[in-house]
């Protein structure tokens, strides 16, 4: 027995030294983590400090860690009962699951009734709990568990470590070792984790915003550079700089691609400006502005329409097929397109009843406009059909003769004729745009200022809806 006691004594001393050493290391680590934690802006450590200032106030953690409240209170009360015990251990709420199985039975075995209760209670709590109660005998395992817990603690939240440090200071007059289990850290760091996660989310969002900003800036720069390059290219071309086009595939593609892209860019800019003008017109209409001021806005919109026709004319000179293809429009617009743009006869159909009331003269004017635009449209359409037919005739004419230069000459001759026919495409596109422009202008002439404003709004809304329809169609859920 004596030997056993002495043995225990020696062990106790050695263990205490170990514990002190580890505590110091622990402290250092806690200090560091606390510092890091503080840097992250978490202020949980301060809370913990107040909590663990006194062993008797162990119940303070309870409000902080709701799910462990009951148990904590009970265990705290247990501890306060045994507060006289030098080996009393204050424990945080969370307990390492690994420790449970090893510690609890020992505690039950070695400690007193109170501890037994606590141990049992804690044991009942299940995986969330493990505790080490200070006792001579349990110090051994306790020390082990302390070591294990130290390592565990390094994994869990750093702020809890800070608590432990404080507790060590405040409580320890012997063998207090702060046991920290995952559960407590879960409880304490439940909030902490949430807060940390939120902070990390904020950080990530901020970074992502910065990245997006940088990317957009880069895109803008590239776009600017691109337009600059295109302008240079255009100038070089006009100066007679021969850049192989058409026959040498890649070159031709890239150049026409550039000019086509230039138009697309101009068009998108035009469209933005157009929407802005239309919105101004809309607000003016709703605010019952005077007719004179309204006329200025209407004239502005009309002048802006002239701008797009000018752009289209330049675009057609650069790349007539791109203009005719309508790739610069949305798919739905493109589908119902006619000769590179809207149908002028359709324009008046869109207006329909929106222009009421109309005077008799106006009504006649509108009807005549409807009829004449329709006739002009038909004429141009038939002209286009004739063009296509003649192209077919030219390209499909088989000049089957003796092989040799004769064929080549014929081929080149036919190609030259076909090239001439293609050149008239530009003229057709030009006439179609003129028709559209003149239809708009005539409509403007017939209508009063207010009617014209309404007409422009109706037409713009129709186009916007068609574009929106396009987007909806493209984004529709597929089976």
């Amino acid at each position, binding site marked *: 027995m004596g030997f056993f006691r002495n043995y225990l004594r020696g062990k106790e001393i050695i263990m205490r030294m170990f514990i002190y050493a580890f505590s110091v290391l622990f402290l250092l680590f806690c200090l560091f983590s606390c510092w890091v934690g503080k840097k992250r802006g978490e202020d949980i450590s301060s809370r913990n400090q107040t909590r663990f200032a006194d062993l008797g106030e162990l119940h303070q953690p309870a409000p902080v860690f709701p799910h462990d409240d009951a148990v904590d209170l009970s265990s705290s009360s247990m501890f306060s009962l045994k507060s006289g015990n030098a080996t009393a251990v204050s424990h945080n709420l969370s307990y390492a699951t690994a420790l449970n199985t090893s510690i609890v039975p020992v505690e039950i075995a070695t400690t007193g009734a109170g501890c037994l209760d606590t141990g049992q209670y804690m044991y009942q709590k299940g995986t969330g709990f493990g505790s080490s109660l200070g006792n001579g005998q349990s110090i051994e395992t306790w020390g082990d568990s302390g070591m294990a817990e130290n390592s565990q603690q390094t994994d869990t939240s750093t702020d809890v470590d800070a608590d432990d440090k404080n507790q060590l200071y405040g409580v320890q007059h012997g063998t207090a070792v702060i046991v920290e289990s995952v559960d407590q850290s879960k409880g304490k760091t439940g909030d902490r984790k949430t807060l940390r996660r939120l902070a990390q989310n904020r950080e990530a969002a901020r970074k992502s915003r910065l990245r997006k900003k940088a990317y957009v800036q880069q895109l803008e720069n590239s776009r600017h550079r691109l337009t600059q390059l295109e302008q240079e290219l255009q100038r070089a071309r006009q100066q007679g700089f021969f850049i192989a086009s058409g026959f040498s595939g890649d070159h031709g593609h890239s150049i026409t691609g550039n000019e086509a892209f230039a138009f697309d860019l101009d068009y998108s800019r035009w469209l933005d400006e157009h929407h802005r003008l239309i919105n101004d017109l809309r607000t003016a209409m709703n605010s019952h502005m005077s007719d004179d001021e309204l006329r200025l806005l209407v004239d502005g919109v009309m002048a802006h329409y002239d701008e797009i026709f000018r752009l289209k004319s330049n675009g057609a000179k650069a790349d007539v097929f791109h203009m005719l293809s309508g790739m610069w429009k949305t798919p739905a617009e493109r589908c119902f397109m006619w000769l590179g743009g809207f149908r002028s006869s359709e324009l008046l159909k869109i207006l329909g009843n929106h222009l009421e009331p109309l005077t008799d003269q106006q009504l006649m*004017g509108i009807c*005549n*406009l409807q009829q*004449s*635009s329709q*006739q*002009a449209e*038909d*004429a*141009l359409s*038939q*002209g*286009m059909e*004739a*063009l296509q037919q*003649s192209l077919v005739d030219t390209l499909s004419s088989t000049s089957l003769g003796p092989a040799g230069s004769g064929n080549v000459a014929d081929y080149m001759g036919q190609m030259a004729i076909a090239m001439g*026919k293609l050149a*008239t495409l530009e*003229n*057709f596109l*030009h*006439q179609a745009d*003129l*028709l559209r422009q*003149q*239809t708009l*202008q*005539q409509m403007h*002439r017939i209508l009063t200022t207010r009617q014209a404003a309404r007409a422009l709004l109706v037409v713009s809304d129709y186009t916007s809806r068609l574009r929106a329809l396009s987007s909806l169609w493209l984004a529709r859920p597929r089976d």
Partner: protein
Amino acid sequence: MHQTESWGSYMQPRTSLGDPLERIARLASENAVVIFSISSCCMCHAIKRLFCGMGVNPTVYELDEDPRGKEMERALMRLLGGSSAVPVVFIGGKLVGAMDRVMASHINGSLVPLLKEAGALWL
């Protein structure tokens, strides 16, 4: 009609040496609606269809089928000042213009009165 024909045939030897523009003017004044065209030109086809669609029966001179067509074409190009001589339309002997002018006048409503005045349209 009969008289002008005989006059025309009498006058022909003189005008064959004469100014192509004069010939153009003469031909233009002979009918209400006169179109100078080239058979292979598609825009000319379009303008013909435009008048036919309105119910007008224009007189068409295909310059590529005329022996003096080339010089008339050159004269017309000078007259219009553009890159293309045809199509060109005369109504009531007066020059209206190429496709763009014709279409513009049709849209702004001035073509139909002109046609009515020249007697090409009765509706």
